[in-house]
């Protein structure tokens, strides 16, 4: 399969690989996917509680190049965004940015799920109700 230049770039030089301290109250963690399906994404956000802004984002992904690129791109986009702006990220924006082929759209869906799951975790930690996570 031919990958787009952007996918290759994110795969070769992934942004924000790493781990945030999940015990911190202002860190939200999303773990989505399953090993037997071939993709597992863990995406974490650190939130400035005063401004409700995402100050840091990290990921680790087990998956194909498109899955790695989708999560790497997501962390790039998340930094500096407010929680509401982050919630508005749609998987199709990732598809467009990375020029993902139809068989790889599920990678972008997983990245969107990971973002929402991380935000939901942050909300729960801070006494807010969990998000209704729509499963695609």
């Amino acid at each position, binding site marked *: 399969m031919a*990958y787009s230049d952007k996918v290759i770039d994110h*795969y070769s030089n*992934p942004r924000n*690989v790493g*781990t945030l301290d999940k015990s911190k109250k202002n860190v939200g963690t999303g*773990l*989505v*996917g*399953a*090993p*037997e*399906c*071939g*993709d*597992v*994404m*863990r995406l974490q956000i650190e939130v400035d509680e005063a401004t409700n802004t995402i100050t840091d984002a990290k990921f*680790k*992904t*087990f*998956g*194909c*190049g498109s*899955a*790695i690129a989708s999560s790497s791109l997501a962390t790039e986009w998340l930094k500096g965004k407010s929680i509401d702006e982050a919630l508005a990220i749609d998987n199709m924006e990732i598809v467009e940015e990375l020029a993902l082929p139809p*068989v*790889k*759209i*599920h990678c972008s*869906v*997983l990245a969107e*799920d990971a973002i929402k799951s991380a935000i939901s975790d942050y909300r729960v930690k801070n006494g807010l109700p969990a998000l209704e996570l729509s*499963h*695609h």
Partner: protein
Amino acid sequence: MLKLPIYLDNNATTPLDPRVLEAMMPYLTDVFGNAASRNHPFGWAAEEGVDYAREQISKLINCDAKEIIFTSGATESDNLGIKGVFEMYSQKGNHVITATTEHKAVLDTCKHIEKLGGRVTYLPVDEKGLISLADLEAAMTPQTILVTIMYGNNETGTIQPIREIAKIAHAHGALFMTDGTQAVGKIPVDVLADGIDIMAFTAHKMYGPKGVGALYVRRKNPRVKVTAQMDGGGHERGMRSGTLNVPGIVGLGKACELARLEMDADTARLSAMRDRLEKELTTLEESYINGSVEHRLPHVTNISFKYVEGEGLMMGVKDLAVSSGSACTSASLEPSYVLKALGLSDDLAHSSLRFGLSRFTTDEQIDYAIGHVKEAVTKLREMSPLWEMFKEGVDLSKIEWAEH
């Protein structure tokens, strides 16, 4: 200067040996006659080339030159062998025995004869990829007309106990066929000593051209016949019609001759390189060799790297042309059915790489491959949440994964 990418997918196909090309050249140009033209020198010259190739081939597998039926390749040979026996021996019975790790050319042909009223037993394999002789014995019935078990497996290189299988088949009055695609030209295959009645093989896995293969069909003790699957001019003793691919056949002949003369030297060199590659790569934690290490083709290794996803791994080893146990052609991943049959979990099957070395593989290429794979696996593991959890001692099987 090392040329990239490095080709290590020689179980898929091998490059043409220049000496084979040289032998073929006259038959692609001046000697263009139809080998079936009996009444002029153009035909005679072509036929001479074909006859010489039959000799070269028969010396490699220890048969009579007349026992070689030329085809377009191993897939056609597998089809002709199985369907041909099923039709020819329908009076005697309708039961065929094969194994779950066979190539699709065998498995799908068996499915086809099931639709035609045949009964097929698919023997399971153990974790090394070997069938159980007791299972085979138990599966034999008076209606069993054919046992077809491959010589060496294309994904793992595992070699089946061919002689013992042949004995069991014969003891019950069945014919024994083997798909010798990966074995012929790589290890000694002796149809007489091995007790093989029918054998499929092809040129392009042993440095010959694509588009030409053969079916060995025994003529004595017993005399075996297969019903033609291609009707026409009655070529190849009536078992396979169609104008002979003379340059291809000459190439197959030359490839067999080279294989016979150079097998010992090639085997020693390739198995040493393969063992070095394997030893180095399995120094990576959580890496596993798939298939039998004791009973194996000399040029193949198949290794799973746990906690690394197969397609991502393939992308990471972009300087190598290798195969993966993950056939990710759509949103739903399909792990290799051969590795699954060995009992591998989906994720381990996905994380596997198959290395197939050739006569043209160099030590320098193996050195590069070792470094390249180690680097890719290490980098992907640093990026893998599963690796992190494994390192933290988390039991991944206890996690409730969200299906998507």
